[in-house]
C-alpha cells in the first residue's frame, strides 16, 4: 500500500490525538434489516436537514403518491421533502420534532398501496451539473446523522482542486449499525455509487474508510476496492483504528489523507469530499430508479427495547410505532434518544416523527443511562486530552461564564463539533458539551466568529 498504509498514517498522526474508547454495544450488528409494515400515517416535517426549511407544496385533501414532492424551498442549501406513503394529506400544521423544535409538517394517511408517483423516472446524468441537480431532486441529505444536503457537498467549487472522495463507513457511535448492515446487504449499490461519483466528478482516488472492529464489512468493502482493477486501481480500502470520533468528517479526512481541514472550513478546502456509505448506496439506487429518499434504515436498540434490530422505515413514521414493531419496551424507559449515545438528542416523548437524518432510536433504563453527580473540576486535563480538536473545554467554560466572546473566539470554540468526548471522559461528571453550546451562544450573541 506504500504511503497510504493505514498503520503508517495512524502512526504519523499518533494515537494520542484525542478521542475516547467507548464501548461499542453493537447489539444489532448480526441481524438482517427488516422492512417495517406500511404505517397508517406519516408526518413529514419541513425541516429535516441543515439549511433552509421547506414550505408545503400540497394542501389538506390532496392525494399524493410515493416520491411526490410535498415540500420544497427555493433556497440553495435545502432539500425537498417527498411523500413516503401514498394516500391523502390529512393535515398541514406545526409539529414537535425530536430535538424539541417546532416545524410545519405534512401528515399523510396511507391508503396501504404504496403507489409510486407517476412522474418518477430515472434521471439522465452525464455531467456534474446534472448530477448535482438530480441529487437535489432526490431529497438526499447526509444519512450519517448530520443531515447536510448532499447536492451542496457534491457541488464543489470549481476553483478548488478536489482529488479525493472518502466513503465514510466508520460508524463510530456505539449501538448504531445501519452503515454496517448497508455494507453487508447493499455492497453492490455502494460500489455503483462509488464509481458513478468518481466518474462524473473526476476524483483521482477514492478511499473507503472503515473502523477495524467490523471485520465482515472490511472483507466486503475490500472486494469492492479490489474489483476496481479495470478502473485504474484508484479505489482503496483503509482500515482505521476504532476510536470515537473516528467517523467525524474532519477526523476522517485527517485519518484518510493526513490533511487538516482549516478551522471554519470544509473538507473541500483540502481537496476532499466525504460521503456516508449509506448515502453513497442511495445515489446509485436513485440514479437507477429515480425513486427519491422516502425511507431509511434505523437502528432500534438499547437495553429497554425488547427486540433490538435494524428496520427499514418510511420517513415520517412515529417513533412509538417503530418501537412497537421491535417488541416495545421491556421496562420503563428513562431516556429515549434520537441518534447515538454520544451525539444524539434525548427526546421528551415518542410521538415524534422519524427524520431523514435519524440513524437510531435508543431507549435506556435508569441504570443504563449512567448519570454521574457533578463535582468540582479537579483540573485533571482529561477533557483536553480527549478533545479531537485540541480545545481546553474547562477554559472555554470559564470564559463562557464571563461572556468573553473575544477570548472564546481565540480559544477556537467554534471548531467544537460537540462530539462529547470531553464530557464522556470527565471524572467530575461536568456537562461540558452543554457548556460548549453555551459558549457558542455567547459568541453568536456578541456577533463574534
Amino acid at each position, binding site marked *: 500500500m506504500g504511503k497510504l498504509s493505514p498503520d503508517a498514517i495512524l502512526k504519523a498522526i499518533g494515537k494520542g490525538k484525542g478521542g*475516547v474508547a467507548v*464501548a461499542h454495544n453493537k447489539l444489532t450488528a448480526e441481524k438482517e434489516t427488516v422492512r417495517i409494515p406500511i404505517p397508517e400515517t406519516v408526518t413529514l416535517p419541513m425541516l429535516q436537514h441543515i439549511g433552509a426549511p421547506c414550505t408545503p407544496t400540497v394542501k389538506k385533501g390532496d392525494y399524493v403518491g410515493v416520491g411526490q414532492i410535498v415540500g420544497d424551498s427555493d433556497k440553495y442549501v435545502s432539500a425537498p421533502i417527498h411523500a413516503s406513503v401514498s394516500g391523502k394529506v390529512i393535515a398541514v400544521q406545526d409539529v414537535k420534532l425530536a430535538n424539541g423544535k417546532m416545524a410545519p409538517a405534512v401528515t399523510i394517511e396511507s391508503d396501504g398501496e404504496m403507489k409510486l408517483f407517476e412522474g418518477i423516472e430515472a434521471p439522465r446524468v452525464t455531467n456534474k451539473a446534472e448530477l448535482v441537480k438530480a441529487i437535489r431532486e432526490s431529497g438526499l441529505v447526509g444519512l450519517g446523522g448530520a443531515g447536510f444536503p448532499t447536492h451542496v457537498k457534491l457541488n464543489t467549487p470549481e476553483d478548488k482542486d478536489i482529488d479525493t472522495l472518502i466513503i465514510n463507513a466508520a460508524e463510530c457511535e*456505539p449501538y448504531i449499525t445501519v452503515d454496517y448492515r448497508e455494507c453487508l446487504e447493499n455492497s453492490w449499490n455502494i460500489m455503483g455509487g462509488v464509481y458513478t461519483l468518481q466518474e462524473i466528478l473526476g476524483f483521482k482516488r477514492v478511499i473507503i474508510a472503515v473502523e477495524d472492529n467490523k471485520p465482515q464489512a472490511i472483507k466486503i468493502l475490500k472486494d469492492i476496492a479490489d474489483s476496481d482493477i479495470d478502473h485504474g486501481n484508484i479505489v482503496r480500502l483503509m482500515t482505521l483504528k476504532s476510536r470515537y470520533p473516528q467517523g467525524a468528517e*474532519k477526523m476522517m479526512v485527517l485519518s484518510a489523507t493526513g490533511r*487538516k*481541514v*482549516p*478551522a*471554519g472550513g470544509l473538507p473541500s478546502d483540502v481537496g476532499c469530499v466525504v460521503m456516508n456509505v449509506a448515502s453513497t448506496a442511495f445515489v446509485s439506487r436513485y440514479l437507477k430508479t429515480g425513486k427519491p429518499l422516502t425511507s431509511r434504515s434505523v437502528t432500534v436498540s438499547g437495553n429497554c427495547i425488547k427486540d433490538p434490530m435494524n428496520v427499514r422505515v418510511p420517513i415520517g413514521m412515529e417513533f412509538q410505532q417503530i*418501537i412497537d414493531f421491535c417488541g*416495545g*419496551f421491556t421496562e*420503563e*424507559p428513562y*431516556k*429515549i*434518544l434520537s441518534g447515538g*449515545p*454520544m*451525539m*444524539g*438528542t*434525548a*427526546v*421528551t*416523548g415518542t410521538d415524534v416523527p422519524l427524520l431523514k437524518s435519524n440513524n437510531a432510536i435508543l431507549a*435506556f433504563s435508569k441504570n443504563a*443511562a*449512567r*448519570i*454521574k453527580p457533578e*463535582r*468540582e473540576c*479537579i*483540573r*485533571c*486535563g482529561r477533557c*483536553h486530552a480527549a478533545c*479531537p*480538536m*485540541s*480545545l*481546553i473545554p*474547562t477554559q472555554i467554560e470559564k470564559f463562557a461564564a464571563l461572556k468573553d466572546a473575544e477570548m472564546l473566539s481565540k*480559544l*477556537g470554540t467554534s*471548531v467544537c463539533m*460537540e462530539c*462529547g468526548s470531553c*464530557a*464522556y*471522559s*470527565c*471524572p*467530575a*461528571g461536568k*456537562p461540558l*458539551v*452543554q457548556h460548549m*453550546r453555551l459558549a457558542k451562544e455567547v459568541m453568536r450573541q456578541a456577533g463574534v466568529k
Partner: protein
Amino acid sequence: MSDKTILTVSASPHTKSSGTVTGIMLDVIISLIPAAFAGVAVFGIRAALVIAVCIISCVLFEFLSRKIMKRSSSIGDLSAVVTGLLLAFNLPVGIPIWMCVVGSFVAIVIAKQMFGGIGHNFANPAITARIVLLVSFASAMTGFTAPAKNTVDALTTATPLAHLSGIDLSGDISAQMDMLLADGDLPKFFNMLFGVRAGCIGEVCSVALILGAIYLILRGIISIAIPGSYIATVAVFMLISSGFNVTFTVYELLGGGLLLGAFFMATDYSTSPITMKGKIVFGIGCGILTSVIRLFGSLPEGVSYSILLMNIAVPLIEKATAPKYFGFIKKKKEKKAKEGAA
C-alpha cells in the same frame, strides 16, 4: 410506555466513562501504600503513628472547614486522605505529633480550602505545609534519625543529600564519593534502593515509589511527562556538574525527595499544567530549580521549593504553551501580506 412516563432530557453525551474523582484519589492512595509500608519498616512503628495522625487531622480539617464555610462536604472524594499521606511522607519520623496537626491545618485549611477546595488551590497543600513547618521548626524538621532497629535510642544523622552537598565539585569527585561510601556516611547502593537510609518517612524507599509510579502511569492517572522531564533535567545537571560521575548522579536522584516529589507531588492536577507541552516545561522548570538549589544553594534539598515555585508559574506556563486548536489558521493579515509579496 404508559402516558405517565416522564422521560429524562439532558445534553449529550448520554454515556459516561466510569472514572470518578474518588476513583482517581483511591488509585493515588493505592500507589502510595508500598512506600508507606516501607517507611514503617525502615523507621519503625512511630512512622505509622505520624501517617495516621496526618491523615486523620487532614480529613478532620477538611470536614470542619467545609462545614464552617457552609459548603458541601468533600471528604468523600478522598483527596484529604491523599494530602495527609503525602504530608506524612514529607516529615521526619521523629517530628512531634502536634506539629503534624499544625502541618495538616496549613495544608487543608490554608493552602486548599481557603482557595476554594479541590481543583482551585494554586499551591500543592502537602508541599506548602512541609515548607511552613520547615521554616517554622527547622531543627525538628531536619532532625533525621538513622534507620534503626532501636527507635528509643534513635541517632540523629545526616541524609545522603547532606553528605553529597559537602562534596567539593571542583575536586576529585570519585575519590570523595569513595571515601563517603567507605566511611559509611553514604549508604550502599542496595540500601539506597530499598530505603535503608536517613530521610523523610515516604521518600526513602525508591523501589516502593517507582512501583507506585508505574501503577499510576498504567492506570492513566498521571502522565510520564512531568516526572520524566523533571528527573531527566536533574540527571543532566548532576552529570554535567560532577564531570559525568554516575555514582554521584544516581545518589542525587535517589538520595532525597526527588522521586516522591516528581511522581506524586509535581503531578498534582490542581497545581500543574493541563497540556502536554505545559507539563514538560513545568517538569524541566522543577528540574532546573532543584538542581540549582542543590548545587549552589545553602540547602541540601530543593524539591519542595522548586515545585512550589513552579506551582506559582503554572498560569504563565499555560498561557505560553496554549495548544493550537485543530485547523488553526494564522491571522489573515499575514497571509494576505504574503500573497501580496508573492
